[in-house]
């Protein structure tokens, strides 16, 4: 009888936003399409933004052709968790007994853990992402049948012993990019032969229409685009501040910063006219925005893959990223598809160069596109997953 690959994730649903959540859905469906039986094991919680409590009924359902099994959430002390997380965020460390508490009060399900242990003979488990109780505890329930898709970021959670244990215990750990694997090695020690760089599949956006976007938003000037959640941890306030300063230092030629995506960011009044925050936009409009932009800027320091870079390159646009983010910087260097900045003056130089040199932009974009098509199409990525599973001895063909 064929084995089943079960993606284990804290919450699952068609409309949940978030990189790891979307990757889980898409990878599961891509593998199922290639003939590997796939299921989803998750809790009854709705999503990251809601209280981590039962929202869906427990039990099995079929969603978009995949079997989804949900288990009741274990009661938790949210306040204690928040206090410990706060300390972690401030750069503090947790004593072992506190870390145990932190893991216990993350999102998890006792029923799910029992199911994982009891059904290990017929499943391979793929835990995604690394930073929740479902993975920290679950990866230890049946380590010999465990794959980990950590989506590891350089953040305090990555330094927890629980993360280290999960990374060491899994039979295979699938990373998006070499920089993520390098981070895992600093956290969990050298590759014990279980680390694989698999990548993440990318879907191209529909063709964009620059004229439509410009007409809709009455834009006449060149546009620098930011696409993604507008959150502090994505470093968007830094981009807005840098851009404000850039516009004061270089009022000519005109340039607008357009932000698309959910969330909010304070826009200083002095650049109110040069920064356009469109909020969440539909997919087609996002594609139009790429078409209208001279480049995409991704200032985030916490990226484990950065899909927007791939989207930009597939849409034929170069990128500008923060030089202190190992992942995006590595993409730019490996693809020869974008520039990076560390500090304002480099931001000013690189942005001015991109804005003033259309030929450079075209060459960067072409190389970026070739990079994505060569490495991160769904076919390539599922090939690598199936290769990993074959090596582990999974029975599916």
């Amino acid at each position, binding site marked *: 009888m064929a084995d089943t690959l079960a993606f284990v994730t804290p919450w699952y649903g068609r409309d949940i936003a978030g990189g790891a959540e979307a990757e889980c859905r898409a990878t599961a469906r891509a593998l199922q399409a290639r003939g590997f039986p796939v299921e989803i094991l998750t809790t009854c919680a709705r999503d990251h933004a809601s209280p981590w409590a039962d929202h869906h009924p427990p039990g099995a359902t079929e969603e978009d052709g995949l079997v989804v099994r949900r288990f009741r959430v274990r009661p938790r002390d949210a306040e204690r968790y928040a206090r410990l997380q706060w300390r972690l965020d401030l750069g503090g460390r947790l004593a072992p007994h506190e870390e145990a508490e932190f893991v216990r009060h993350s999102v998890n399900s006792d029923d799910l853990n029992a199911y994982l242990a009891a059904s290990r003979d017929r499943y391979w488990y793929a835990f995604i992402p690394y930073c929740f109780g479902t993975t920290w505890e679950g990866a230890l329930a049946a380590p010999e049948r465990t794959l980990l898709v950590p989506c590891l970021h350089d953040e305090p959670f990555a330094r927890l012993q629980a993360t280290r244990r999960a990374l060491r215990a899994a039979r295979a750990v699938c990373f998006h990019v070499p920089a993520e694997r390098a981070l895992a090695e600093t956290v969990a020690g050298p590759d014990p032969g279980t680390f*694989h760089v698999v990548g993440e599949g990318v879907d191209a956006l529909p063709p964009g229409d620059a004229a439509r976007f410009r007409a809709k938003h009455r834009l006449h000037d060149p546009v620098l685009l930011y696409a993604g959640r507008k959150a502090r941890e994505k470093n968007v306030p830094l981009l807005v501040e840098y851009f404000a300063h850039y516009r004061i230092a270089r009022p000519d030629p005109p340039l607008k910063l357009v932000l698309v995506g959910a969330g909010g960011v304070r826009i200083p009044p002095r650049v109110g006219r040069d920064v356009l925050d469109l909020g*969440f936009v539909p997919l087609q409009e996002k594609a139009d925005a790429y078409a209208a932009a001279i480049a995409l800027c991704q200032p985030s320091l916490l990226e484990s893959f950065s899909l927007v870079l791939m989207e930009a390159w597939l849409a034929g646009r170069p990128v500008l990223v923060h030089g202190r983010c190992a992942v995006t910087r590595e993409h730019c*260097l*490996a693809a020869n598809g974008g520039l990076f900045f560390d*500090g304002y003056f480099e931001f000013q130089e690189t942005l001015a160069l991109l804005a003033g040199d259309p030929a450079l932009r075209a060459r960067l974009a072409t*190389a970026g596109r070739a990079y994505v098509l060569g490495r991160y199409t769904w076919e390539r990525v599922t090939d690598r997953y199936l290769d990993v599973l074959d090596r582990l001895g999974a029975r599916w063909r």
Partner: protein
Amino acid sequence: MTGEGTTTAGEPGAGAVDVAGLMAEIQARVRERKAAGLYSEEEVRRVTQLELEVAESVPGFAGELEQHLAALNDGWDTAAEPVVTTHRRGIGRAVVLVKRLLRRLTRPYITMVLQRQVQFNTTLLQLLNPFVLPVRDQLQDLQRRLEEATLEAGERLAVEHGERQQGERRLAARLDALAGELAGLRGALDRLRDPAPAGALPPAPVPPPGLATLPEAAYVRFEDRHRGSREEIRHRQRGYLELFARGPVLDVGCGRGEFLELCREAGVPARGIDVDAGMVARCREAGLDAVQADALAYLGALPDASLGGIFCAQVIEHLPPEALIALVRLAYAKLAPGGVLLCETPNPACLTVFSGAFYVDLTHVKPIHPEAARFVLEAAGFRDVEVRYVNPYPPEARLQPVEPLWYLRRYETAFLEQINDNFERLNQLLWGAQDYAVVGVKR
């Protein structure tokens, strides 16, 4: 190990950009410019400040306490076994072995001392752990309460200040009323002492029905209270002066004589008539030419085409329709060609006029719609008839538009615009112009 696994930069192919090389050039250029002082000191300072503000969220005092406590909790066990490593290749393993051996030999002696330190640390932490965080929380609570108290005190002060201002306004109004009463009394006294010679004035006036039962000088007091201060009225009426370049001007219902004063200042001969003796007395006191007379009777007695202008503010709403028509016809007859008739009256197209100004005055008979007024003037023969809306409510009395804020979504901004459009329509209907003036020219 599978996958594309390379950590080296891609080789730039034909036509591709060597990003690593380009970035090295850019970084070198930035370094050179900084060194050469091409970025101004001010700019470097501002940017450094900016990076400090944005890149680091500096934890406050409260956060710092917790951080220190966490650091103590992490490091209390000074006797814990340290990790032995070496960076030397080849003989590294031997070095590690030797180090471990040395450590094992010395450990019992070091531990004797360290154990006391650990004991001390543990005791200290046992004291600090339950103590520091509650104290910090209490501090935060105190700070919050202080902020709340400050806010509350500020609000209370603002309320008291408002009440005091209101009291002052009431006192000022009372003073005005007393001054009016005094003027009325003086006028009455003057008339008793020095009765006007018979025949110098047109026939004795017939007071309108509304005034018949009111004591003399009552209307002066009433006007003082509700019409607005003399300065306000002068300010409002100054705009009409340009229409009355030619005299003589007759001010029908001259009241306290604000327009007569304006005419005098502009050098235009003008006379006022009013049915109220108190008003007339006040005008005379101010040295203005005013007589007590009924408008229809007085106008009727004047020779035709003898006036350059007729000014008639806040009068026609006191007249029944037939008297209004008669007044306008008489005015047309008595004006010289090119002469102007102006009638100012409350604007019934502004609905709050009915909850305020119009029905405050018992002697108001009927509101006159601007289009009705225009019709009456045109029917009497006036040309170039125009309606001027005047005396708008102050902006603070109107519904205030809601300002869109930067963090609103587009659909929220669209809602706001709709709400503001609706506010504007309500403003027009409820808080528009309180009065209008209909102006016609005799050709």
